């Protein structure tokens, strides 16, 4: 997405090739892909765009086997721009050439044009201003505890998050959803049970191991801020799993019934805490 944005390329023309021999290949998620890779990708893509603009003019105004450049003599790289995987003349966008017809400006035997970038990203805005970016997400939970059955129901999830810059909203929201699902499961239902006499695990399947289902999830309310204070591309800082929480529901239960219940707060534990079991 960053490459398409920087190079004026169509989204579908950007292909990612993973090195299957690398011990770790960052993915495009909000956890670390945004923060670890997007800045250097943006720098490399910007450098590549400069080469693309030069290539569009061709050595001596000629586009190798493709014939003369469509642009008027004397056109300079700064007179050009890119969009939809084409180089076009700013003053007359009807004059354009697709990326696929470009020739390497330094080697007319090769059609590929590439650039690399390395370095350190700039410091995050808040660090640069002498402050620490120590709060990027806040989370609020409202629960209802049935004191007769021990059932705990999460009524509301509210998340206020600052990912710096939202790159792809559905990816961002799904990352928050899945973290909430993990958190709900850890605090309310999920438990690996072992038979103490034999050491054999009793939770052998997804009936006995209670992963929450979508019916068990409360509606998610999200308020997303874009401060552009991060040090990744466009000020992004990622969303990460920092919303994963092992005890916020437990704290809400304590506020509701005045008793502490260790997670997972299953009905037996809640009723025991209430003196009813």
């Amino acid at each position, binding site marked *: 997405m960053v490459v398409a944005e920087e190079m004026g390329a169509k989204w579908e023309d950007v292909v990612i090739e993973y090195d299957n021999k690398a011990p770790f290949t960052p993915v495009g998620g909000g956890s670390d892909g945004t923060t670890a890779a997007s800045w250097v990708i943006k720098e490399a893509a910007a450098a590549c765009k400069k080469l693309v603009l030069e290539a569009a003019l061709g050595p001596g105004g000629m586009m190798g086997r493709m014939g003369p450049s469509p642009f008027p003599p004397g056109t300079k790289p700064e007179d050009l721009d890119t969009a939809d995987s084409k180089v076009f003349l700013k003053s007359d966008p009807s004059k354009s050439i697709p990326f696929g017809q470009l020739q390497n400006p330094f080697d007319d035997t090769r059609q590929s044009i590439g650039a690399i970038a390395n370095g350190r990203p700039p410091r995050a805005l808040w660090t640069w201003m002498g402050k620490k970016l120590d709060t990027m997400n806040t989370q609020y939970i409202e629960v209802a505890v049935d004191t*007769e*059955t*021990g*059932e705990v129901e999460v009524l509301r999830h509210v998340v206020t998050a600052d990912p710096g810059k939202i790159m792809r909203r559905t990816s961002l929201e799904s990352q928050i959803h899945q973290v909430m699902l993990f958190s709900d499961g850890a605090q309310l*239902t999920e438990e690996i*049970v072992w*038979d*103490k*006499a*034999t050491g*054999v695990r*009793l*939770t*052998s*399947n*997804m*009936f*006995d191991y*209670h992963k*929450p*289902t979508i*019916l*068990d999830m409360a509606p998610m309310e999200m308020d997303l801020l874009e401060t552009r204070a991060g040090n990744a591309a466009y000020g992004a800082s990622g969303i990460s799993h920092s919303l994963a929480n092992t005890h916020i529901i437990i704290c809400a239960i304590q506020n509701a019934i005045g008793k502490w219940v260790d997670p997972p707060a*299953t*009905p*037996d534990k809640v*009723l*025991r805490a209430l003196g*009813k*079991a």
Partner: protein
Amino acid sequence: MKAFSHTNAKSLAEASTALAGGKATIIAGGTDLLGRLKDNILPTYPAVLINIKTIPGLDYIKEEGGVLKIGATTRLADIASHPVIQKKYTALAQAASRVATPHVRDMGTLGGNLAQLHRCWYFRKPENRFDDCVRKGGKTCYAVMGDNRYHSIFGSTSKCMAVHPSDTAPALIALNATVVTNRRKIAAEHFWEVRFPESTVLGPGEIITEIQVPAPPAGAKSAFLKFAIRKSIDFPIVNCAVMVGGGAPRIALNAVAPKPYRAVKAEAALAGQPVTLATAEAAGAAAVEDVTPLKANKYKVQIAKTLVTRTLLATAKA
């Protein structure tokens, strides 16, 4: 999963004959059976699965002569959504709608929901790991000394503490239903038994063909509630069905004992009285008078008591 052959039965007689040989098992929806086979939980394995969905005339819902008749292979989803069942036999529709998930209800049949084996994580542990289990012909109930948070609160039957998990069973008991087989008629409350490993009184070659539910008395209302860890998928921690009004109350629970449990003391506590908060709470307390909970399942007593009270109160909304 081990290899087995699969036969599409064309008649009850054909299925019964094949079943009586002892090496075959009935399959309808397969939602319980295939899990059992895949997990290889039993010491023996069927050589043949006899598909009874191919037998004509076992999938229907109809009212005849004041009796609701449901074919054994009728899918749970069809029962849950049937307008007559929802209105007149409310507890049954509500129970069918709470079985597992939409996918399971689209596959699972009423007969299968009644005949499914009990739930116990020692009995169901894959590869027959706890092989001395009493329900497998052994001498040990591992739940007695082990983790028994989901087991019986009304003691054992034939030394087994596992519970029966059917959601439709208490609804049929509350509605005074009858299970019809290819050989006899059995009152629903007497249909379940603790055997090895079966959970019903069905004999060799005996197949459920129909469930008959008499029309509730005038003025009667029924309701079903289920308490489970999750809102979908799960088997009950406790479930409860009641029918009140127009006669003596009928109250049944499941997942609290090795067999579906008719709460006769709760029925007696409520008899002759209207359902109010006070009478419903008294019935709830009476329902758990005879409990003998295990170390880890005392909480189920509180839930059972609450569920009886709430299910009775729910009849006001039915």
